[in-house]
């Protein structure tokens, strides 16, 4: 073979075309450690519960039965709570409410923080200065404390509005961290020649954001999405646990832990009843553990962004 015709890119692309996208993904997944597999299976399970909650749950979300504190039985697999609502059904609906609200909040936070971060990185003018300084000040207040103050200051009347209020407050507070990261990684890409070329071509801001920069900063953002999701999820669970987040009758794991926690003191007399509070609590913990495992593996995969060199 003559050296003139040889091209390294050609050889690589040959291998790439031989394998389908699915096949390549499968190869990557097969190398994943056990913890990452565990995480992915758990996340899949939660997603199924979230999407098909009304079909999986045997009873309604806020359906009240005649007997409160019922024993575990065929009809009530985990018994009923203080108002006579089926605990098992509420757990499944909780997946939809708690996880769904946390997911929505994280998406909104990435939309705000990521968008502003990209604009700030491209623009680098007074706009960048203003947003960055505002973010600095917002980051100086611990987010849970800030959220508590805002929740006290803004009054809402209906449950729907209180959920919207919660989502907006947490998303805005959390977007400050997304902004920082997006801006930092985007700054490295903005100085590249192809971005300059796109600018000279006369592309608009939206094109440069979506087509030139975003694909190149995707891996750290995806990892950050996982981390921010578990943080937001824990914050919302904590607020609900404190009685300030998702309000009843909406089934939610944080609230359920608070309602069932009184039984922990009767652990000596009734093991089943005493351990009830740990089921929604464990559901929260299991999902965050799973997400963290997957993110850890993902970060290892896409270069040593963590502490490994």
């Amino acid at each position, binding site marked *: 073979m003559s050296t003139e015709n040889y091209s390294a890119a050609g050889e690589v692309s040959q291998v790439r075309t031989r394998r389908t996208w699915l096949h390549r993904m499968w190869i990557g997944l097969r190398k994943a450690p056990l913890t990452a597999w565990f995480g992915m299976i758990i996340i899949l399970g939660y997603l199924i519960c979230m999407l098909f909650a009304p079909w999986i749950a045997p009873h309604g979300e806020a359906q009240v039965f005649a007997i409160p504190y019922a024993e575990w039985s065929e009809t009530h697999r985990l018994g009923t709570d203080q108002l006579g609502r089926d605990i098992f059904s509420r757990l499944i609906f909780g997946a939809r409410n708690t996880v769904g609200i946390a997911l929505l909040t994280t998406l909104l936070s990435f939309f705000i923080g990521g968008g502003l971060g990209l604009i700030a990185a491209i623009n680098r003018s007074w706009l960048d200065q203003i947003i960055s300084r505002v973010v600095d000040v917002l980051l100086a207040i611990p987010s849970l*404390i800030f959220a508590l103050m805002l929740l006290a200051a803004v009054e809402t009347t209906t449950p729907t509005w209180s959920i919207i209020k919660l989502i907006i407050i947490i998303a805005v507070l959390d977007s400050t961290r997304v902004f920082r990261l997006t801006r930092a990684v985007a700054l490295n890409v903005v100085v590249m020649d192809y971005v300059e070329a796109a600018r000279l071509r006369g592309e608009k801001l939206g094109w440069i954001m979506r087509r030139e920069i975003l694909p190149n900063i995707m891996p750290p953002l995806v990892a950050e999405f996982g981390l921010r999701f578990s943080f937001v999820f824990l914050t919302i669970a904590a607020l609900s646990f404190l009685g300030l987040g998702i309000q009843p009758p909406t089934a939610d794991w944080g609230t359920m832990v608070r309602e069932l926690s009184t039984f922990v003191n009767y652990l000596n007399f009734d093991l089943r009843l005493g351990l009830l509070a740990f089921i929604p609590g464990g559901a929260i913990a299991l999902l965050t553990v799973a997400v963290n495992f997957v993110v850890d593996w993902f970060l290892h995969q896409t270069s040593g962004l963590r502490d490994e060199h």
Partner: protein
Amino acid sequence: MNSVLTTVIQRLALGIITLFFVSVIIFAMVSMLPGDFTQAVLGQAALEETVEAFRKELGLDQPAHIRYFQWLGGVLQGDFGTSFSGRAASGIDRSRSVAELIEPRLYNTLFLAAMTAIVAVPLALYLGITAALHRNGFFDRSISTATLVSISLPEFLVAYVFIAVFAVLWGKFPPISEIRPGATFFDRIHVSVLPALTLTLVTIAHMMRMTRAAIINLLASPYVEMARLKGVSQRDVIIKHVLPNAWAPIATVIAFNLAYLVIGVVVVETVFTYPGIGRLMVDSVSSRDMPIVQACGLIFAGTYILLNMIADIIGIVTNPRLLHPR
């Protein structure tokens, strides 16, 4: 030394400016409340003159910037205003001053935080440095997985596990941390053990991971390799070469986690009904008692800013590059 001093002063000034903006934000939150919230506080049956007097007391008849400086002046002298609760529609005022409500609780919270820090900080540093030195060994890998799990656990779940095991099943510690008026020092420790243990577990993981990362970063630098190659013992490499450069990241780690304690305190105090300002803040948020929420928020945010500032200053002061100017 001059450059160190300038940098420290710059950092202090930045801290004060941040604190100023934070106080403006916290103050603005009350101004965001709708004008007729006086009625919500006093009840629907409030007399016209009671409402008027209350509005006057809050200074609502004055423009916002004047109210802000009056409030700030009061805060600087330890006067946070009076609580909303205890006011009646008829005009009888049994409300208590915010400072009077906060003071004993602030002491309790500081006691809990100090107790946690004394245990958690040395333990986390020890574990973090050990894990970094035996990187990728069995100890490191098992402790990395363990911290990853404990970071993911919600504080309240950890707290209830401790209550179930140590208070209900074993019965050694009280499940509710009640501090009676005549409690001795050891009584206080006894009721604070479980909350402190919970806070230790949730902060230690972050602290350990960050210490480990900082030390691994330093161990990879060329001068450490140089020191090893010229035959310096492992102990001396750590003490003479790594630690002088490690103080800054370690100080950051400690301050960050003491700041994290500030947040953890809110949830943990509520679980154990510990009489600290974290629980006071949660209770006040539910009852929308804004002067208390403001005061607690200011205390929490101020502590947070102060801790971060101290960490930065330690980092500047111990930086070998700044200490030996060219």
